[in-house]
């Protein structure tokens, strides 16, 4: 309790901190990473240049950064939207899996339809599956007052098992049982050509359709929260739940609908994974990417603002992309992960510093007159 380092809440945080702190955190991150790189025998400047080139300037680098940013944009929006009302949907990961299941089902069943209709059906299918999965913790929260953090988190693992079961442990509709390779190692059915989402190409730069969708969603959510009756209710509930009851807001329904939208967005992340990139339901790929959890970090860094989520997802997408480019015999994966971790850690830590004050105590005060 009386350790040398103390953290105190700032009652009067000056305004300039909000600008200076994030910039200073990035600089600090660059310095710490530089020390790390020097210690491991790498040249920081050339590494930074390499990262910059791999994320932005190199051939196809920018497109690739957008590919990494796309799922994070969706899962970031999923978390940011629910968190805005202080409904803690940690289940973006599982909702994304279920969205991928739903989208690949619609894409497979309706694959013979014209491409635009298939794409719409995949978006709807993914969104619906994500919504339904999110309604489980939502119903439990609204009617039984369970903690949605725990239930939505647990359901991530359940969703993971469901996807594994569909591809590895059953003869489900999603599993490829015909091609010769699939009998050696189980895989999902590959979707038909109509289910491949087209990218938007400008010169050498290709923008995934999913990113465009996510961008539209971000603008839509921003407006929804800011200037509609629906968003007003959300803000009241997030700020003062008792005031929401008092003003006649039907808070239970509100939890259900906000969770449905949040889960639906994560579901579309699953659709985009199938339609934009994978074209097949791949449990391992989805699980290793951990887009749902990273989305929570994105939402936190964006301070739950949907428009800021776009920028943050690009930042993290670019970092991830640069990280993959660095990896090699002399540059182990662990080092890349450590670098990314340091950058996120300092930025998040900076946020906390803006709100709290750290001080070193010269000397723990001796216990003075206590209980007589």
């Amino acid at each position, binding site marked *: *309790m*009386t350790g040398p380092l*103390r953290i*105190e809440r700032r*009652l*009067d945080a000056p*305004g300039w901190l909000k600008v200076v702190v994030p910039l200073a955190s990035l600089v600090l991150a660059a310095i710490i990473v530089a020390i790390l790189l020097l210690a491991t025998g790498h040249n920081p400047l050339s590494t930074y240049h390499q990262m910059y080139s791999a994320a932005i300037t190199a051939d196809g680098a920018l497109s690739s950064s957008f590919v990494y940013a796309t799922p994070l944009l969706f899962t970031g929006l999923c978390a940011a939207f629910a968190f805005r009302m202080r409904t803690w949907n940690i289940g973006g990961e599982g909702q994304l899996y279920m969205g991928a299941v739903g989208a690949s089902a619609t894409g497979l069943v309706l694959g013979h339809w014209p491409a635009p209709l298939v794409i719409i059906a995949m978006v709807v299918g993914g969104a619906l599956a994500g919504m339904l999965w999110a309604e489980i913790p939502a119903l439990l929260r609204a009617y039984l007052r369970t903690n949605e953090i725990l239930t939505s988190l647990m359901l991530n693992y359940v969703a993971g098992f469901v996807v594994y079961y569909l591809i590895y442990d059953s003869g489900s509709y999603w599993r490829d049982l015909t091609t010769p390779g699939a009998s050696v190692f189980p895989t999902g059915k590959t979707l038909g050509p109509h289910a491949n989402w087209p990218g938007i190409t400008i010169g050498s730069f290709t923008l995934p359709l999913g990113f465009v969708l996510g961008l539209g969603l971000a603008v839509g959510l921003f407006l929804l929260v800011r*200037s*509609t*009756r*629906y968003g*007003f*209710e959300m*803000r*009241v509930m997030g*700020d*003062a739940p*008792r*005031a*929401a*009851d*008092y*003003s*006649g807001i*039907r808070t239970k329904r509100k939890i259900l609908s906000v969770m449905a939208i949040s889960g639906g967005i994560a579901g579309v992340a699953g659709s985009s994974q199938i339609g934009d990139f994978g074209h097949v339901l791949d449990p391992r790929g989805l699980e290793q990417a951990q887009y749902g959890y990273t989305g929570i970090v994105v939402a936190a860094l964006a301070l739950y603002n949907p428009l800021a989520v776009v920028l943050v997802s690009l930042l993290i997408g670019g970092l991830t992309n640069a990280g993959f480019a660095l990896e090699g015999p002399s540059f182990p994966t662990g080092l890349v992960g450590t670098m990314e971790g340091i950058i996120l850690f300092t930025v998040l830590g900076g946020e906390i510093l803006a709100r709290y004050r750290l*001080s070193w105590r010269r000397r723990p*005060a001796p*216990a*003075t*007159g*206590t*209980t*007589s």
Partner: protein
Amino acid sequence: MLDAGDDHTALAAGAGLASSLSGAAPGPRALAVQAIDMTKRFPGVLANDHVSFEAAPGEVHALLGENGAGKTTLCNLLMGLYRPDEGKLFIEGKPARFRSPKDAQDAGIFMVHQHLRLVESMTVAENVVLGAAGARQLRFSPRAVEKAVAEAAARFQMSVDPAARIWQLSLGQRQRVEVLKALCRGARILILDEPTAVLTPQEADQLFSSVRDMAAAGRTVIFISHKLPEVLAVAERVTVLRHGRSVTTVPTAGTGADDLAGLMVGREVSLAPTARVAHEPGPAVLELAGVCARGDLGTEALKDITLQVRAGEILGIAGVSGNGQRELAEVITGLRPTTAGTIRIGGARLAAGGPRAAIDLGVAYVPEDRMGTAIAPDLSIAENLMLKSYRGKARGWGPVLSRRKAIANAQEMMARFDVRAPGPTTLVRQLSGGNIQKVVLARELSCQPRLVVAASPTRGLDVGATQYVRRVLAGTAAAGVGVVMVSEDLDEIFELSDRIAVFYAGRVVGTLKATEADRHRVGLMMAGAT
């Protein structure tokens, strides 16, 4: 209240303790607190502008001022929650630069906040030990602490069972625990922030006598209040704050309430009670028949309540806090389900299923819990003003809300209800208590209600705002609206009510006409006597 003999012996008894403490104080005549030109600026606001005051050891010193006068900021400076931009603070003659409440506590300064900070599931003794500077070395022995608490309680006449759990205690008892906690942890300077807000008149008298005992025992008590009579009753000297400045320090002896009110507000004020116009009440707007309801802990909080309020009438609900008044207000406004009985509003039966039914029947509600229930503190004034009307057609088109209309409406309301704030987009959390209550009244009364339920509508408000709120309630009744006013302040009940219903243990002990009631009788009924 204390006669001279008592005072003398108490002082003598206190002298021993004072000398035992004087080892820490450098000189015998050092002031306990000396604040010189304390200044604290916030963006756009000068919260404390060269505030100075001093309190001698063993003195009860009152800080008097309206809401927003800078009392709370000054205390936060004393407690190390804020750091002063300018000025000096000496505690027992030594310069003090507190970096946190911990530092202030190490120097012997403790504060009892308006909103008590106790762990409800723990016992009194556990709460006393919690966070104590030597908690780790102490090796918590419940029995020893209980004994110490009981001793301190006996010495300062604050009876409380050290083994009781906090949730079992009334608000008044909880406050005693906070005071005991400070005393047991070595408080030499005790700051009490609006301590009587949660007390009955009898409990307040008890507190005052305990405060005098503490002062007699050499403790310095800084008593923050905006209530003139209690400042005159308990303090030796008063420092009046106005607009962030310390106006003057006067001894209470020979000073009248009107003088202090004038200093506090900066002009002559009359403390005349709100005038009520006598008129014939109209038809019943609220009828409760055999209503029962459960409290938060699942126990029966309302037992077979039958009441009637007519248009144009103010029904005062008197009673000691926690006897079902809050539950009554919540039942009428649809926030709490009933377990039996019927509620009719304007002849129509109030359906179960939440506050919206009550709102639609024209029930306005000014809740007791201003910050958490009545408003959303992080939203703007304009947004808080439409908390109940945002669903209406006048607020926008389809799903979209009109910002322009909200601002225009807010400007009109702020002018009509005299809300003082930089503008409609100011966050409500930045307003003073009085202005927040005006925002609540503006919103509730602009919905054209036929019934207003007001729970402790002037709690924590300054003189000016209190008079304003009472005038508005009287005016609302005069306009033909039925008013139910819950209050623990008997003066307020007598000043405004046409009839008074007294609550005890979840029942209506009796209903009296205000003209036929007297304080003594109501006081007895509040204690359960019929």
